[in-house]
């Protein structure tokens, strides 16, 4: 996790008081004092897989881009192709440095107003991203605004999320939203963005609005019986679904091609980092991100060495768990490209012992998105 633990005081989201009142275990994350768990991570994880859970993700950043060159500009800094995006669509992709390293991974929202886009970025990277965007926007006729502090956000995730969202927001529209689309609603006189997106591998929604409205919505979802969920299970859920976390699986040193996310990089258009990514794709890269499953209950954790069965160190674990939904010990690891093929036997050194395993697909859990 990118824990920017500078000496500055921790920031608080609009829901901070709620977390404390619920007795959450709080911990610094991305410069914010965030809830890790309210009770059991396993209970919270299973609530999202089986029913519905709600997360405070108000720490995420919202950067708005508008103006005559907005489309051309966003397409210049974003790896995915936004030309031809319909209003109300959402796209996942990255911003890259010229060498293909990742500034951040983000969502781009194509707003209903012409030439308007919303970029939703990782909390730890808000300042860095905004500085990067301001640097790149020179010469483009558009305006960029960092409105992160003005927005709260909750994610309601799980197979029953749709029913709860319809009940609480009174928004029958929710049923019609497909995966990676959004609509605009109004709540307490403020704009509310209802987005069918998430970071759990389940169906669900991300809801953005002004902080006062988000606090009220949080209370109402909890009153309806939706399980409050902390960042602990947010990580176990995204991991099982094969989703990367910036700082672990994507970074200035780990490109989208290395991370196996080339499908989100449209190399037939021009964008910052494109040439480097094209080179990596055609010539191959030194390391690749893989999934590894080991034959034991011991838990591979970030930083543990990955070895051949002969004991030669060929990589490192980036995220690992004993999977809650699959009851298997699995991890993401960056390994030398020669060891990245499926079924390659590898072992992981965990404390004083080694545990044999093999390379498996990174999407460990069968996701359940609404098509």
């Amino acid at each position, binding site marked *: 996790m990118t824990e920017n633990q500078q000496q500055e005081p921790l920031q608080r989201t609009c829901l901070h008081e709620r977390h404390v009142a619920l007795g959450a275990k709080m911990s610094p994350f991305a410069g914010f004092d965030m809830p890790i768990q309210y009770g*059991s991570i396993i209970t919270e994880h299973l609530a999202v897989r089986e029913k519905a859970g709600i997360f405070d993700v108000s720490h995420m950043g919202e950067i708005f881009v508008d103006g005559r060159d907005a489309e051309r500009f966003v397409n210049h800094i974003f790896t995915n192709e936004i030309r031809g995006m319909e209003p109300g669509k959402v796209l996942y992709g990255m911003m890259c440095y010229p060498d293909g390293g990742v500034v951040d991974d983000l969502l781009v929202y194509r707003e209903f107003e012409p030439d308007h886009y919303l970029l939703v970025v990782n909390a730890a990277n808000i300042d860095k991203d905004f500085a990067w965007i301001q640097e790149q926007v020179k010469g483009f006729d558009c305006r960029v605004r960092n409105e992160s502090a003005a927005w709260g956000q909750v994610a309601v995730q799980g197979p029953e999320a749709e029913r709860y969202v319809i009940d609480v927001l009174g928004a029958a529209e929710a049923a019609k939203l497909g995966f990676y689309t959004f609509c605009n609603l109004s709540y307490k006189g403020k704009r509310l963005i209802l987005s069918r997106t998430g970071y759990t591998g389940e169906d669900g929604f991300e809801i953005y609005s002004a902080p006062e409205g988000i606090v009220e919505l949080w209370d109402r979802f909890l009153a309806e019986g939706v399980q409050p969920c902390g960042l602990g299970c947010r990580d176990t859920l995204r991991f099982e679904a094969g989703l990367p976390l910036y700082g672990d699986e994507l970074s200035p040193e780990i490109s989208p091609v290395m991370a196996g996310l080339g499908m989100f990089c449209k190399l037939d258009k021009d964008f910052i980092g494109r040439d480097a990514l094209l080179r990596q794709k055609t010539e191959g890269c030194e390391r690749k991100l893989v999934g590894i499953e080991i034959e034991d209950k011991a*838990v591979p954790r970030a930083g543990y060495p990955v070895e051949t069965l002969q004991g030669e160190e060929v990589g490192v674990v980036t995220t690992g768990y004993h999977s809650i939904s699959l009851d298997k010990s699995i991890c993401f690891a960056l390994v030398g490209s020669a060891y990245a093929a499926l079924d390659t036997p590898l072992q992981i050194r965990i404390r004083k012992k080694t545990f044999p395993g093999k390379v498996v697909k990174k999407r460990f859990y069968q996701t359940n998105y609404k098509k």
Partner: protein
Amino acid sequence: MSKIIEGLKYSESHEWVKVEGNVAVIGVTDFAQKEMGDITYVDVPDVDDSFEAGEDFGALESVKASSDLYCPVSGKVVEVNEELEDAPEKVNEDAFAAWIIKVEMSDASELDALMDAAAYKAMIGE
């Protein structure tokens, strides 16, 4: 409020020791299991392994983190709680019942360096 049992010895790294003759029965405290959260795996040594006081002998794994276990006294492992292999959650359910290893002590005077219940209670601030 964590459970603390009178008559046991406690280490700064949150192990408890119950003395049965020359054998130290070792587990982790209720405070430690609460701090860890759901325990998913207990990494235990083999019978006949020897440890010095303060040496790590295994680990507890929760969903989010692993935490090393330290042997409060020197000696040889004479028994490990194999039940924990399939049921690590027993540590959460009752940390004082879910002993982890039994060690035949080589120097029982090391027990004097451990805390009693009152001192441990003061250390964890409860």
